[in-house]
């Protein structure tokens, strides 16, 4: 087994991890700010993939799908927050979780009604077909694009949260919503926007994953478990944690697939169990935030 193969597999793992990072980020931001675990996150990821596919075929360009699907599904997420989740603030922390779980049934079955149960191939955009010679080996252009795009989105998100006034309000709102309300911030609108952002990230993850996985109504259930593993390893509510853990999981899956393919899906769960035994709050989690 030569070195270039391992490096290529490592890059593959980073591409896989990048999609996980984007998806888990949506989950962890919504939890960090709203205290809601969105069990419909996987279903919304799946719907994002379908929306991207549909919009791409409607407009004839993958790029419109990539741009519009997260916005549309994000807006749909805001509707969900406004109509359903808003009613549950102040009730048991389990209630939003249960509600979104029921919602995922509705979403998955809704997609089955519209698009059928069978998988649909998601064509790779023509500009990104083929492989690129990196000097040490050939790497699929599309996967490289995913890595770059996710890096850009992460940077934009970080700059918004750390350097802008909006980011300041959001971070303060997560710490102490009551004080923010006293200061005249409409915290309900902040939560609405955050939930929309979280769902939009799920949809973006779905569109990006489209050409790498087959698109079918069931794809969300595996993704939900993966996103959970990533957020648990990284620490719930931690953005840095989601990034590190997402890459960790992606790379481990990829490298294990090289040596023992049948263990590839299992390795991330094992990783999670080990992390939890050492640090129950996750790598970047704060003790006490998990209650």
């Amino acid at each position, binding site marked *: 087994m030569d070195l270039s193969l391992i490096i290529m597999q490592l890059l593959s793992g980073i591409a896989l991890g990048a999609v996980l990072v984007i998806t888990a980020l949506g989950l962890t931001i919504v*939890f960090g700010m709203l205290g809601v*675990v969105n069990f419909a996150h996987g279903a919304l990821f799946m719907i994002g993939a379908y929306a991207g596919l549909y919009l791409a075929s409607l407009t004839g360009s993958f790029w419109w799908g990539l741009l519009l699907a997260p916005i549309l599904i994000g807006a749909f997420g805001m509707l969900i927050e406004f109509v*359903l989740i808003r*009613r*549950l603030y102040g009730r048991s*922390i*389990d*209630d939003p*979780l*249960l*509600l979104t*779980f*029921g*919602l*995922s*049934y*509705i979403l*998955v*079955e*809704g997609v*089955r*009604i519209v698009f059928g149960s069978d998988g649909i191939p998601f064509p790779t955009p023509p500009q990104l077909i083929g492989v690129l010679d990196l000097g040490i080996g050939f790497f699929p252009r599309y996967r490289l694009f995913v890595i770059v795009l996710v890096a850009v989105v992460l940077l934009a998100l970080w700059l918004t949260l750390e350097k802008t006034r909006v980011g300041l309000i959001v971070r303060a709102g997560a710490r102490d919503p009551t004080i923010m309300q006293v200061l005249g911030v409409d915290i309900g609108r902040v939560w609405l926007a955050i939930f929309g952002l979280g769902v939009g990230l799920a949809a973006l993850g779905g569109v990006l994953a489209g050409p790498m996985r087959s698109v079918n109504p069931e794809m969300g*259930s595996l993704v*939900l*478990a993966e996103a*959970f*593993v990533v*957020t*648990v390893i990284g620490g*719930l509510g931690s953005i840095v944690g989601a990034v590190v853990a997402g890459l960790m999981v992606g790379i481990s899956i990829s490298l294990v697939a090289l040596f023992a393919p*049948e*263990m590839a*899906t*299992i390795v991330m*769960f*094992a990783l*999670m*169990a080990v992390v*939890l*035994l050492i640090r*129950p*709050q996750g790598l970047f989690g704060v003790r006490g935030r*998990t*209650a």
Partner: protein
Amino acid sequence: MTSSPGGQTLAKSAPGGFDRILDHRVLLSIAVLAILPWLLPSKALAVNVLIYGVVVMGYNLLFGYTGLLSFGQAAFFGAGAYFTGIAIGRYGVPWFAAVAIAVLLSTCLAALIGIVSTRTRGIYFSMVTLALAQLVYYVALQAASFTGGENGLRGFTVDRISLFGLQVNFLDPVNKYYVLMVFAALAMWFQSRILNSPFGAVIEAIRENEQRARACGYDVERSKLVVFMLSGAISSLGGCMLALHLSIVPLDILHYQTSGMIVMMVLLGGARSFFGPFVGAASFLILEDVISLWTPHWQIFVGAIFVLFVLFLPKGIWGTLLDALGFGKARP
């Protein structure tokens, strides 16, 4: 709060007549189950209510009584079924011994998963149990030589149940129902004993206020682990019943959708009540039967009904009914 056998301190607020009824909840529940096949449209449905009722009852110990929202109960339901099937089909173990072995091994599995998951709290716990149960799913999928992988486990059929020289034709649905009802009755009796014990008071104290329970000197972590194992043991018995009933074990039984279904059933019926899980299992299965008659997309309705229950009827059918009848403040 701890040492009153029968939880009398909690039951005192109930009016006398109701109190007497609650004292016989196991016998009453068994009486209802005994006539169930004649109330439902089909015997097969009744058998399913029995099986899922036991699984959900075990889960309710964790969710309703201890307040731990696990999303991984399918692991124990599935483990019970797989271990039973493997013991009978592969090693030729007699059915009753297979059930005992399956429950024992499933409890060990619950201990392993419990050690990792009970270290976490709140919503974290839900996510970790789901992830670890998915791990069990993938292990069963990969270990195809033992479990049959995607095709499920086959090759074991129990057509005759024999014990102490007694022979019962297990293929007859009525016989099957009453044989399986013995398991359900045992599980109910066991669960009632747990709830009436000092330990039962401790887990309810953990649900009401974990920090206070810890301050009172209870070992909260150990209690959670023990209740996780007990819950897994009872739910795995439901799995054994399913294996005996179907003579196959579908891989789907381990999927997290099954865990979700168990959660749905307990909420539909009413968590924190003794008979609620059976009401929940029955209403879910009847709902599924009725809706799937006129549309293959029954899940969209089940999902919507579940959402409505979370929003407007969080105590479920049985729990709300008990409240309306004035049992609300009584021992659940």
